[in-house]
């Protein structure tokens, strides 16, 4: 210890004597520790209990993803497989039962002699089935509330099943309504189309119109919420066209309905535009590169890094290079983010690094890197210092090893806000120092950290956006874009741990990537998510799904298709205007 000779310190003997009463007996302590270990081993509380024989057998015959989920015990058997399968089977069951009911109603229907009711007016004769179906329809309208609170009821990962449940209810309402209309002698195709149009609009407003902004959008679906919503709007427009042909509503109302569909499609239906490297390249090419402004440099970094990570060429960044070089030559005091982005995109050559390193503060920072002691904690935007050091000063292996040690000392060990970002920074510095061994040594820690910061949706939370990563799982159980970028960056380096579902992650990132008003031209708001999505899909790769998993993942789309198919069956079960005219029946349709 470095004691100055002239300074008197407290005697070590005094300190030892002061703490002596608290000193443990080594033998007793060792016995106690061993007894606790033996106790835990005896009760099977080891590091990780082996899965049961039944679970292992199930995992061996089930599709790989489902099997892994079972073995990892991150999801129960029910939530992994049984619930989606049950819901899918219910959809088919509801469709078959409703179809039979409609066909039976059609067979037993009174001839459509009663005058067709006015558009959007109550039928003149209300039988019991029509009254009941009206009540059920009212209940469906409140389905929107159910979809909004679904994440709190069943967790975000299964919120989509609430939507599927509402679609099943819609099938039941349709069958009941057809039965009521058949009894009332109203089995006209125009009337049925009008009824289907109302039902589909109700279901769309209740369940689908929110999918762009709500967290209940199906995160595991391959085709996503956009196709479901689009199909629903096509169904509504199709019903409107049948109404037009059957002259059960005037042209103005039909035009209004179709116009409504177009507006809703433009504003509320999530766009389905696959992320393309060209989007990132276009963003970089048009980036203004104002070194006096901080805005956009982070996004440019995300875009450039993603392109490099997926092996795509960077666009011509000469304008950015010129701006950065000019700032260095002019001695401009830029935010460190500018230098860090420039370093990562290789916009600074050795001569300009040298010029920058000659500035007083930069030279001091480099000296501190080489001669400093203790944990090396640098914020993300100061990463350029290491780039500058490696470019301007020859470093010995010992100096590099010392830097790696200082980064190691900075490794986040205690739960805190921004732990994931902190860990990413350590990993990045090790990568720059070519110390993959350090990253490998922390692989298990990183997996644990990633799983802890992933918003899986298993925790019930009303406002949680699931599928991404959070900055602090104890305080914010919702996904953040920048933390999701960090999470995907770490996943690319250390692989995906079993507790993270890449499909759910992709579903979340894809939703975020479509956030701009014009999805094919991402803005500052969505460019990070486009970059994240491209890295996830092309650098890491989402595992392929087999037929069973695909089928279960698309259960909401299947239920939507079945509902639309049932509407077609119901409309076709009615008598068309042409048929009535040919038969010489009364086709007066007062409007």
């Amino acid at each position, binding site marked *: *210890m*470095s*004691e100055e000779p002239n*300074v*008197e*310190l*407290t005697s*070590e003997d*005094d*300190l*030892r*004597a*002061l*703490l*002596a*009463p*608290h*000193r*443990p*007996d*080594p033998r*007793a*302590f*060792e*016995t*106690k*520790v*061993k007894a*606790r*270990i*033996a106790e*835990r*081993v*005896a009760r099977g*509380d*080891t*590091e990780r209990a082996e899965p049961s024989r039944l679970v292992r057998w199930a995992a061996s015959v089930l599709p790989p993803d489902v099997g892994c989920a079972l073995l990892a015990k991150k999801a129960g058997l029910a939530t992994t497989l049984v619930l989606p399968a049950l819901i899918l089977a219910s959809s088919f069951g509801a469709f078959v039962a409703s179809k039979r009911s409609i066909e039976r109603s059609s067979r037993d229907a009174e001839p459509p002699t009663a005058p067709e009711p006015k558009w959007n007016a109550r039928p003149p004769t209300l039988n019991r089935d029509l009254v009941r179906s009206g009540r059920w329809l009212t209940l469906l309208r409140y389905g929107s509330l159910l979809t909004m609170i679904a994440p709190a009821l069943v967790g975000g990962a299964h919120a989509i099943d609430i939507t599927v449940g509402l679609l099943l209810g819609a099938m039941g309402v349709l069958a009941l309504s057809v039965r009521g209309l058949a009894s009332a002698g109203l089995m006209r195709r125009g009337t049925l189309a009008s009824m289907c149009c109302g039902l589909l609009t109700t279901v769309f407003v209740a369940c689908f119109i929110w999918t762009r902004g709500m967290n209940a959008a199906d995160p595991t679906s391959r085709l996503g919420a956009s196709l479901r919503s689009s199909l629903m709007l096509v169904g509504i427009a199709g019903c409107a066209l049948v109404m037009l042909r059957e002259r059960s509503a005037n042209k103005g109302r039909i035009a209004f309905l179709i116009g409504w569909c177009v507006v809703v499609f433009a504003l509320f239906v999530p766009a389905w535009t696959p992320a393309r490297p060209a989007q990132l390249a276009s963003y970089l090419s048009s980036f203004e590169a104002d070194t006096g402004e901080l805005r956009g440099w982070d996004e440019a970094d995300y875009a450039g890094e993603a392109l490099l990570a997926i092996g795509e060429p960077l666009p011509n960044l000469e304008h950015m290079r010129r701006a950065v070089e000019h700032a260095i030559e002019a001695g401009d005091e830029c935010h460190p983010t500018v230098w860090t982005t420039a370093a990562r995109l290789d916009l600074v050559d050795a001569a300009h690094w040298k010029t920058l390193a000659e500035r007083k503060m930069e030279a001091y920072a480099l000296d501190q890197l080489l001669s400093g*002691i*203790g*944990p090396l904690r640098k914020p993300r935007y100061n990463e350029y210092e290491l780039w500058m050091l490696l470019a301007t000063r020859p470093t010995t292996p010992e100096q590099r090893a010392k830097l790696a040690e200082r980064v*190691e*000392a900075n*490794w986040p*060990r*205690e*739960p805190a806000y921004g732990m994931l970002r902190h860990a990413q920074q350590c990993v990045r510095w090790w990568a720059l120092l070519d110390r993959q061994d350090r990253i*490998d*040594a*922390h*692989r*298990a820690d990183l997996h644990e950290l990633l799983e802890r910061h992933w918003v899986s949706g298993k925790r019930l939370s009303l406002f949680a956006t699931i599928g991404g990563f959070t900055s602090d799982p104890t305080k914010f159980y919702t996904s953040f874009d920048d933390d999701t970028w960090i999470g995907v960056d770490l996943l690319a380096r250390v692989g995906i741990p079993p507790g993270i579902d890449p499909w759910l992650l992709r579903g979340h990132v894809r939703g975020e990537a479509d956030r701009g008003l014009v999805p094919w031209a991402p803005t500052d708001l969505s460019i990070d998510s486009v970059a994240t999505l491209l890295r996830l899909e092309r650098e890491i790769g989402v595992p392929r799904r087999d037929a069973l998993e695909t089928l279960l993942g698309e259960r909401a789309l299947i239920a939507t298709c079945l509902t639309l198919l049932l509407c077609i069956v119901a409309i076709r079960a009615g008598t068309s205007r042409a048929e009535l005219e040919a038969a010489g029946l009364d086709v007066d349709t007062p409007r």
Partner: protein
Amino acid sequence: MAVESSSRAASGGFDVDSLERWLNTFRGPLIGLLASWGRNWRDAEEFAADAFAEAWIARSRFLGDPHDVEAVGAWLRGIAFRLHSASQRNAAVRRAEPLDRVEPAEAAVEADERSDVLAAALAKLKPAQQTILRMHYLEQTNVREVAALLGVTVKAAEERLYQARKELRELAQRELRRRGHGGRS
């Protein structure tokens, strides 16, 4: 004993000696560290025992070299912190088991004025300084092990220890003067 049989199956350079080495190396500073996190000494000893047991049970997760003091120190510190945090979250703190040895009664502790003054001065030190003194002097552990548990360099630990002793000396002299003695401690 179960711990011995389980240790035979262990891989990665672990054996019963590893556990004993960890105990001998980190017992004192870990108890001192836990005592600094607000535990009384008895609880700190219990938590330290739990931390060692947890570290041994979960040793398959430890990817470092079991002989590397810094790696093991960081590992133990993380486990101790998690246990400490978890117990703070849970209202029901694990009740301390009776120790095999007889704890000296408070009244039996050497109660001369010198110790009183030092104890009073120690309580006035900055928390980080109290921590390092407790960790180092409870069993006169090497500074290297203390530094490993604290996650700082040996140099930083030595500096902190030096400053703590210097500060303690000054505080003790002030305390003596306050009590009416002009002498040096």
